């Protein structure tokens, strides 16, 4: 072994995860000063096209990589996402119709930085929904408003937002930027063989067209088959289908009826008897899919439910023109994400149903953790790996608990939903928290890590969206609290008057662009 410093970082895989890794690493001058970055991509591997929803974190990620928001919006068919809406998750639909829904907006409840407003909402829960009472953004979602105006700069917000995007186009934009601007070395070739040294650290990969590519740190972004982490190191997947049953999806791309049809400014998740349907609005089309458990539903049954759903959203849809794709996945995550000098990021690390769009944000969080703990020397890797694994395991567990929360509070009666409520399927930490939240509201102390995936605010939006109110003494409403609620309604009114619709702003950006400041 000639040297143990990190001079060459090799990324395997050219999807969103691979190019985000390349972009974020190559945008750090202190890293690329000493090391070069190479991305190896197999030819003709279709990108899976999941993960079309991002979190607000993506704004900072793109900024760091150095891509302007205008360019991103124009090239990725992207639109603005201000949160999620859950339709029919509380109760069974009556006569096939369900009017009940709630929001999980990206904006924090009003006054969140100084106090917990939730207990003051309980007394008025019959008059106004939790999210409408504490977040003006909910009203913007109701009317499919954009989260900003054309006078705002790139990435500047009126209300907090992330994106819906076309993952294939996103990978293309990142690739173009990484290669042209960040001098990432791009190799299109199959990885035939993994070569390791006497410590079982990977020293090189043998490619079919470009020979031997040596490296010091290897990032496995090769998707669910895990070229390095799984196929080479055989790090097992810890399956999670005993908690979250969904392991299949059927998906379809749906054109808009016309140029006027509203573009949803939230991800709409509509509950079904055996799963749920996502509905995501891009600029040029919708992405709609049904995610379900193969134990409770057949592929044909899922397709029927998907088509049923589509017909409720658009009356004159020509179904014969639509191609329904089928997807299978094993919900779970690796026992280790960082093994020797190999780090799994993206679907090679783990995958869970797309509820709450955790896929891309986990890529971003993992990369931020890696960048904050970047090895300058191979000898530091074991300690950094341990830290990375602990952090990432913690995040996966919290995500799984939070997703499970959406199911356990439901009163839906089908076999699938009942199975979700079986105590043995619920993580013990969630059982504990649910017991606590029968008497008090989720708050900061319930989640004490510096970088939690989901904050207490998110738990409040789900719990109170599903009308799980704690037994709580009636609270006196001080004038200052009334003012917070009033301000929130005022903000909503002002925002509605000023904000364009999602579609209007996207059209404006296509025509004029936004300014960088």
């Amino acid at each position, binding site marked *: 072994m000639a040297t143990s410093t990190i001079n060459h970082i090799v990324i395997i895989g050219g999807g969103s995860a691979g190019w985000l890794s390349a972009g974020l690493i190559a945008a750090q001058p202190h890293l690329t000063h000493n090391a070069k970055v190479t991305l190896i991509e197999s030819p003709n591997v279709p990108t899976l096209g999941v993960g079309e929803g991002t979190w607000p974190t993506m704004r900072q990620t793109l900024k760091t990589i150095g891509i302007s928001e205008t360019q991103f919006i124009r090239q990725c068919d992207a639109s603005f996402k201000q949160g999620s809406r859950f339709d029919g998750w509380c109760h069974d639909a009556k006569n096939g119709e369900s009017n009940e829904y709630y929001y999980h907006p990206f904006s924090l409840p009003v006054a969140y930085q100084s106090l917990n407003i939730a207990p003051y909402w309980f007394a008025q829960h019959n008059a106004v929904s939790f999210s409408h009472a504490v977040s003006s953004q909910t009203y913007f979602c109701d009317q499919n408003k954009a989260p900003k105006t*054309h*006078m705002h700069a790139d990435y500047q917000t009126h209300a907090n937002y992330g994106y819906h995007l076309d993952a294939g186009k996103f990978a293309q934009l990142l690739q173009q930027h990484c290669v042209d601007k960040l001098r990432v070395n791009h190799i299109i070739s199959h990885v035939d063989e993994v070569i390791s040294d006497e410590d079982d650290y990977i020293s090189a990969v043998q490619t079919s067209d470009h020979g031997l590519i040596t490296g010091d740190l290897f990032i496995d972004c090769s998707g669910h088959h895990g070229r390095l982490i799984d196929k080479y190191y055989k790090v097992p997947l810890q399956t999670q289908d005993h908690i979250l049953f969904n392991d299949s999806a059927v998906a379809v791309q749906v054109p808009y009826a016309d140029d006027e049809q509203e573009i949803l400014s939230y991800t709409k998740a509509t509950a079904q008897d055996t799963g749920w349907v996502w509905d995501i609005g891009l600029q040029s089309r919708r992405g709609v899919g049904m995610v379900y458990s193969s134990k409770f539903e057949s592929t044909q049954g899922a397709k029927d439910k998907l088509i049923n759903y589509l017909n409720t959203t658009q009356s004159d849809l020509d179904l014969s023109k639509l191609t329904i794709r089928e997807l299978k996945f094993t919900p779970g995550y690796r026992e280790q994400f960082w093994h020797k000098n190999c780090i799994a990021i993206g679907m090679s690390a783990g995958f869970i149903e797309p509820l709450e769009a955790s896929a891309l944000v986990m890529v971003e969080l993992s990369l931020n953790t890696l960048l904050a703990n970047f090895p300058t020397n191979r000898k530091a890797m074991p300690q950094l790996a341990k830290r990375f694994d602990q952090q990432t395991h913690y995040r996966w567990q919290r995500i799984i608990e939070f997703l499970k929360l959406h199911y356990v509070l439901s009163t839906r009666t089908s076999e699938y939903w009942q199975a979700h409520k079986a105590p043995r399927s619920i993580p013990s930490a969630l059982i504990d928290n649910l017991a606590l939240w029968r008497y008090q509201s989720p708050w900061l102390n319930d989640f004490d890590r510096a970088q939690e995936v989901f904050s207490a605010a998110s738990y409040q939006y789900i719990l109170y969206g599903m009308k799980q109110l704690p037994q709580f003494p009636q609270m006196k409403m001080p004038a200052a609290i009334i003012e917070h609620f009033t301000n929130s309604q005022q903000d909503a009114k002002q925002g509605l008057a000023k904000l364009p619709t999602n579609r209007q702003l996207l059209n404006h950006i296509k025509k*004029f662009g936004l*300014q960088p*400041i």
Partner: protein
Amino acid sequence: MANHVLLDNISHKDLKVITERGAKWGDTISCTAIFPNEFTKVQAQQPIVFRKHPNTGQFEALALFGFENNENLLLDEQGNLSLNYLPLSMQRQPFLIGQQTQYNQGIPEQSLVVHLDLDSPRLNQEQGEAIFLEHGGNSDYLNHIAQVLNTLHIENQALPAFFEQLLALNLIEAFSIEYQQKNGEKVTVGGFYTINQQVLNTLNGEQLQKLQQGGYLNAIYMAIASLEQIPTLLKNKWAAQ
């Protein structure tokens, strides 16, 4: 509101344009659009600021007359406006650039034409500059206007490149004008942008050369110098209070 029509020498043959400036001719305005080639002349009389156009969100440059809507602090007591240099966007009034689609063998072609704002108080049949000659030919005045409109069109086309280059070098920063009313009340007028002098001072030779070659460097310094006109405008504001 605006009543824009295509100018022609039949319907408009007897019209004249009052070219005097002042309150009664619609000059009670707080700003007018200007272009980098005008900055040298404008900076000697008015502050130059940038802002995002309210319709397009794109940057534009303005010469300021006042700090509130419809406030022109350069009008004299009689309401007359006498400027050493009248910005092109005001010289053109009441004419505008219009676009016309003509079909050349079935292929649409855009051409520029002169439009007239029929609602302008400057239009009348008695006094001012004749638009057309007796037999329908263009007056010298109209020829001048055509030149002004043509220059405006060219400057308009060139403007995005100016801002693009400034933005690429981080040379633009937001700023607000803060002033005190005579009664002590503090007022902040926001939404303006100007040159970031700190960034300008750290540009390297290559960057400066590029700005110079684009003809932008002079405009940048003129925009900075023009901010010294803000106190002059404020003095007028206090004098009126």
